């Protein structure tokens, strides 16, 4: 297990929204967070590693140092919750380092942030909001515009910051009426078609909610371009690896991700 007793790691978890301090490195933390210490729990985990120097309040560091100490038998402290509720809005984007995606059996993939190139001529996008709210939305806005609009305080519906992922729509994005959606695992695909058709025909409304709250785990195979963290004046983009990298470099993680059941 990747334990460095000299070092504390800070993680911002999306599910549940929380700031966690741990003595485990990201790989080990992801594994632990997904499957627990004795395989009595199981669940997908999505979290960022957080730069402690960029935390908004230095008292959090003191609190972490006080609480996150090894167990009496010398075993490392695996997780100490520092904050829950409205954590995302309190973290500056500069504090977010790598994004980690853990499968439900504990395989972990780390993603680095990169510049996002806006894609021209794509009429419709499907977004899965992950934190602090989690509806699934179809939108005519590209990820940058979508992130800007949803965090715009002048809008009636907005959040200070948001983490979302762009999901695959394949041919449905171009032709919702007749395109096949054979490999799209979303529930009630006809409703999704209706939502896209409505969006295409009513230009005054750029977004339409498809599902109010997704209760199952994110199916990683449906991720299209990647993950986004947006605020009114900035955005981080974590590109999802392409298929050939997934099948070669990240095969173990990908194989596990494909075996997960979700929505």
């Amino acid at each position, binding site marked *: 297990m990747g334990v460095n007793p000299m070092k504390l790691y800070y993680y911002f978890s999306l599910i549940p929204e929380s700031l966690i301090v741990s003595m485990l490195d990201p790989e080990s933390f992801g594994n632990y967070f997904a499957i627990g210490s004795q395989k009595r729990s199981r669940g997908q985990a999505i979290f960022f590693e957080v730069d402690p120097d960029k935390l908004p309040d230095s008292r959090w560091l003191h609190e972490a140092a006080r609480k996150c100490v090894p167990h009496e038998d010398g075993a490392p402290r695996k997780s100490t919750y520092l904050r829950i509720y409205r954590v995302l809005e309190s973290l500056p984007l500069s504090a977010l380092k790598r994004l980690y995606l853990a499968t439900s059996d504990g395989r972990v993939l780390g993603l680095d942030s990169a510049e996002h190139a806006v894609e021209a001529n794509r009429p419709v996008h499907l977004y899965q909001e992950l934190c602090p709210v989690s509806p699934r939305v179809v939108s005519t806005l590209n990820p940058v515009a979508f992130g800007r609009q949803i965090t715009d305080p002048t809008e009636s519906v907005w959040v200070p910051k948001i983490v979302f992922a762009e999901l695959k729509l394949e041919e449905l994005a171009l032709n919702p009426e007749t395109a096949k959606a054979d490999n799209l695992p979303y529930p009630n695909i006809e409703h999704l078609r209706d939502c896209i058709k409505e969006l295409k025909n009513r230009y005054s409304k750029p977004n339409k909610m498809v599902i109010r709250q997704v209760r199952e785990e994110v199916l990683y195979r449906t991720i299209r371009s990647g993950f986004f963290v947006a605020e009114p004046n900035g955005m981080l983009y974590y590109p999802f690896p392409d298929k050939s990298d997934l099948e070669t470099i990240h095969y173990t993680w990908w194989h596990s991700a494909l*075996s997960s*059941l979700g929505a």
Partner: protein
Amino acid sequence: MNETSFIFVPIAGLLALFFAFAFFKSMMRASEGSERMQIIAGHVRSGAMAYLRQQYRVVGVFFAVILVLFCILSYGFGLQNPWVPFAFISAGFGSALAGYFGMKTATYASARVAQAASESLDLGLRLAFRSGAVMGLVVVGLAMLDISFWFFVLNRFVDSAVPGQKLMIITTTLLTFGMGASLQALFARVGGGIFTKAADVGADLVGKVESGIPEDDPRNPATIADNVGDNVGDIAGMGADLYESYYGSILATAALGAAAFMTFGESVQYMAVIAPMLIAALGIVLSILGIFTVRTHSGASQRELMAALNRAVYLSSGMIVLGSGILLWGMGLPNWGGVWVAIVTGLAVGLVIGRSTEIYTSAEYRPTRAISAAGQTGPATVIIAGMGVGFTSTVVPVLAVALGVLVAYAAAAGGMQFNSASLSMGLYGIGIAAVGMLSTLGLTLATDAYGPIADNAGGNAEMSGLGPEVRRRTDALDALGNTTAATGKGFAIGSAALTALALLASYVETLKIRLIDWVERGHAFVFPDGSAVESVEAVGELDLLLLMERFQVSLMNPKLLAGLFIGSMMAFLFCGLTMNAVGRAAQSMVEEVRRQFREISGILTGEAEPDYARCVEISTKGAQKEMVLPASIAVIVPIAVGLIIGVPGVFGLMAGALSTGFVLAVFMANSGGAWDNAKKHVEEGHFGGKGSQAHNATVIGDTVGDPFKDTSGPSLNILIKLMSMVSIVTAGLNIAFTAF
């Protein structure tokens, strides 16, 4: 051709064993890959061998008990041929030995096939196929040698003053030896079926569904047991099943030939007796030729891979059509043309059943796709659709067998007339149709055994972390194996049905020989209709029709009707017992896997290795414990029915078990296969693909179908043959004792 042509039978057997040995040595010379690949293959190998040792121990006890009973019947009461106790052991031993060699080869081959696939698809295909061919050739080689040996021995020691009777005694005696193969097959199929599905269902439920661990992930404690199960069920089990069909069909046809050609002179009768053996010998040679034609090119599509195997099967089948015609003509059988048509009919029935199985279980066709589509509305509709497909899939195989029986009968008998003269000849035609279907068994069994080898190679590549190109190739080989496994099951069921029909007809012949024994010992025999026979000559004058009339074998006889119902019920009872057995054994496996996750920390992080051997042991013990009851019932019921309601009841029992068991076996194998491929179809990106509602629903269908297609369905093949075989072996008891 003359009587010395029999020598080709043992020569063909030796030839089969020679090529099996050559393929084995050639496979062993191939590289077993990296250390990791060798370790994984070693786990599977030791698990498979541990299972076989345990199974042979239980079977050994069962055989010992039956040996004692046979000795009492033979030497104590004189109700059985004195050769039976020993020859029964030799047939069982041959079947067990074939299973051992097949398993040994398969478990040595898996890592080597994965390694060969890293070089090219063609190398992987050829190595996997030739390793599968070891099982096919060992089965036919050992069966032919066993038959040759005992035919030679009995020919020297058996004598009879009545012309033509010597060969009847020899062939009916030989036929009773088949019970050893039947009993061994029962344990291999039932035990193997329970093992493989307990491991598979257990591995899936905790691994895939509960913990989200992918298939063939080394962190799953039941993964090795699952891989062992593929070998145990589809290699040892399938091999023993077809060994029994092969052995039984040749010997039953020989017995029917001895009766049918009795009045044609001893030379012609001898030729009719050895004809099924010579056709099987010819089939061995053509199978070997076919095996050498299997090859492909790099980047071959699934269709091209299938074509590579089909080319070999069609080539061998075509050559057997031509070769058997020349052979029968050369042997000088009076109705050689009709017998040849019967052989061709058997081959055609086999091909039709194989094709029908493919259509109903492959995702290339509408029935299986309809099950996938049903997944969009949940698991209940998947189950309903799968059962619907399974039920309707029985139509073509049943009609093929029905039509095949009629054509084979008519061709051999010279028409559909049902009289004393034509009946024996017609039944010989039905028997030889079964021989024709199984004539290229060396090759068809190679395609069956290829499946689990390719499957294990894929598992090895996955667990060893081989590159994507290698995995793509092993996946392609594995997908081909799934298709051959499904069609192989259809073939096994069809051949079992024809073999059981031949055994049913042979039962009457055996009764006649036991009657001769009875009167030779100075007893008179009173038939249920009140008539009596007191001399060998009087019994000799009874032809098949007359004998059945005297025994009151009539559909209107309540004893026969009662037997019919009991036979039908037996098929369902057997399925129920084996399904419940899988459920219980899988439950033990689930609990063990959960225990290991709980108690061995670090399994899921890859820091600790699971206790694979414990899971293999649980499956083994579960299989051994659970197979005793169904096996005992299959042996005891025919004897009990014979003792209580006599010959008509036994006839009813055999007919009921055969008709119901055959249809039920087709239903179970096809619905299970269709559920499996419906899930794969969704996983390939249809109806939402992996993770969709349709996927979740079809995963449930696949899990339900697992014991259908790999335990209960295949076990029915054995049930219908074993009950006929037990009835034949204990025919003497039916003569001596009947309560009503």
